[in-house]
């Protein structure tokens, strides 16, 4: 039988794991951390100002117009929701498959999910043009009729899917955090810290009877999150696929979107993990090159899936024998937005093929660069789907172009400020490696395993 690779390097014991993980929470961060925090906060401020101006002066500031009614907001919303999917994949699907290597990256990947979904949630609200009426999206007894939402609309399905996903992901993340927060509570030296982590850990005691129910619930949540995560991006794709527009109205959309989401999400995990390994030295023992290589393999696989979807769309357009459908796809690749299509293809299909080489899969700098390319490519994939399908309307007299403006730019880049600020604060406030999951797998791959 092949020997299992060692999961945690440097022969750590239980105590060292606790020390390593808690040290991040218990020490005052250095200058580098504050520099990063300041940078992301400045970006966030830029985001807030952009959003404020759009909310006050209206959607006209952004690039959307007639016929391109869906623009940056929808593109970036789908982008961030997609990023979130890798976290759930790691924490739930790999858990169900008993993949022990997931333990050291699961917490951070889940945090990424939660923050990505939070960031994503802002965009559709901004897109409505009247974000202060966002609560109208939810069905609740009201004095406007009562006026209910239209459950036949894919946009309302999306409200339900995304908010359920956000709630369940946060719960899953929090349930995982409870025992580790209790560890921080028990190590606390001062009263304030003890109080805060005492409240957060809800009085966790760690008895065998607690663990018995806890483990069961954790597995149930993994089991429920798995169909949930697949449903979320399927429903996001319904926003497009259920309409009658050539280029959107295709049955391949749900699996194509889910594959793309996993692809972009894993790229983001690799981006974050390669940064974390550089910034926090002892992360290297927990997130090893083996972990990153496995994730790169998933990126490569999903890249092939996404590439296949691009090809299948073209094939079906040709096979349908329908002129309008064929035009929509030829226009995508060779029309006025040809550049966005080919950015997408090179970043998503061509560049990740470098991961066929083991040396590249294990090279930190190269994988970091490739993961950035994948993120760019996946943003452009949603841009291609949304904008190129809209800009050629059915009547040539209604044709138009998307007017990308500085406000679109602010919304895209600014949202990274929100994401990274939340992520940086998370790193210093919550235990960023799941101690209660890593400790049982410490001995995996070591010679003294029994």
């Amino acid at each position, binding site marked *: 039988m092949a020997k299992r690779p060692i999961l945690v390097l440097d022969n750590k014991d239980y105590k060292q794991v*606790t020390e390593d993980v808690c040290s991040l929470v218990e020490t005052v961060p250095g200058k580098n951390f504050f520099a990063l925090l300041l940078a992301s906060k400045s970006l966030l401020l830029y985001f807030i100002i952009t959003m404020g101006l759009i909310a006050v002066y209206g959607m006209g500031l952004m690039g959307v117009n007639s016929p391109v009614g869906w623009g940056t907001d929808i593109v970036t919303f789908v982008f961030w929701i997609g990023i979130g999917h890798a976290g759930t994949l790691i924490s739930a699907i790999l858990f169900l498959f008993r993949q022990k290597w997931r333990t050291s990256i699961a917490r951070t990947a889940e945090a990424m999910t939660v923050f990505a979904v939070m960031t994503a949630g802002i965009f559709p609200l901004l897109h409505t043009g009247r974000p202060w009426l966002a609560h109208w999206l939810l069905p609740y007894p009201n004095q406007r009729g009562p006026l209910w939402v239209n459950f*036949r609309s894919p946009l309302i399905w999306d409200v339900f899917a995304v908010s359920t996903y956000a709630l369940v992901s946060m719960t899953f993340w929090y349930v995982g955090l409870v025992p580790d927060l209790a560890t921080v509570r*028990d190590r606390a030296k001062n009263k304030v810290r003890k109080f805060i982590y005492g409240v957060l850990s809800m*009085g966790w005691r760690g008895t065998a009877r607690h663990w018995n129910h806890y483990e069961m619930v954790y597995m149930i949540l993994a089991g429920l999150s798995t*169909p949930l995560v697949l449903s979320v991006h399927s429903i996001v794709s319904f926003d497009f696929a259920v309409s009658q527009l050539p280029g959107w109205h295709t049955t391949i959309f749900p699996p194509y979107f889910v594959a793309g989401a996993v692809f972009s999400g894993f790229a983001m995990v690799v981006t974050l993990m390669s940064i974390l390994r550089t910034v926090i030295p002892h992360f290297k023992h927990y997130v090893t090159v083996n972990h990153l290589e496995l994730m790169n393999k998933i990126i490569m696989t999903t890249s092939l899936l996404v590439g296949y979807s691009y090809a299948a769309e073209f094939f079906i357009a040709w096979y349908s024998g329908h002129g309008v459908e064929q035009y929509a796809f030829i226009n995508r690749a060779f029309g006025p937005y040809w550049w966005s299509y080919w950015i997408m293809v090179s970043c998503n299909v061509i560049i990740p093929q470098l991961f066929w080489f083991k040396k590249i899969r294990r090279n930190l700098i190269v994988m970091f660069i490739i993961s950035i390319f994948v993120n760019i490519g996946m943003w452009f994939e949603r841009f291609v789907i949304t904008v190129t399908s809209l800009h050629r309307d059915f009547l040539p007299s209604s044709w138009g172009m998307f007017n990308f403006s500085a406000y679109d730019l602010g919304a895209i880049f600014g949202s990274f400020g929100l994401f990274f600020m939340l992520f940086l604060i998370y790193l210093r406030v919550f235990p960023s490696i799941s101690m209660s999951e890593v400790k049982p797998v410490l001995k995996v791959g070591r010679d003294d395993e029994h």
Partner: protein
Amino acid sequence: MMNTKNTIIQKIKTIFCKIENYIKSPTKKGTAAFWLDDHQLIKAAKEMTDSGFSGFEAVSPFPLHGIDEAMNIPRSFIPWATFFLGLTGCAFGIWFTWWVAVVDWPLNIGGKPMWSFAAFIPIIFELTILFAALGSVALMFFINGLPSVNPPILDKDITSHKFAIFIPEEEIKGRGAELEQIFNKFGAIEVKQSEF
């Protein structure tokens, strides 16, 4: 001036103390034994169960593989609750979409039937998951007695790298010597009187 301020602070403190005593998790007096090796603890727990001790607790920083068998802890019943919570969510989803779309706010959209079930499946699905997931977590917290205030802590390392067995006074039933023997046999690093 200073005096009245102090008495007010004093009063607030007593009120908080009263509240704290009221909501504090109840504890029992008993004996606690500590280990650094989780495998030894599981063996000790097995031996205790075999020699007729019950009602003791094993406390660990992570779930121990095999402790349920050693302590005769039955399989958690939560999956059943999850199933019925999911059914509740599903039933609520079906009823709610039907009531809104057919009874309270019937909208004719493209001549489609009022009760267009296929279009409501995403909503019903999401509600099923939502009820099942949040309900199960709430139930887990409830049966584990969480949230609790100032839970008893046997040792500050019990959530880091120490493992303990705690047996309340009334479960020892005068067999203290026998218990001590089991603890020593499996190499407990410390045995002390404690509250948990």
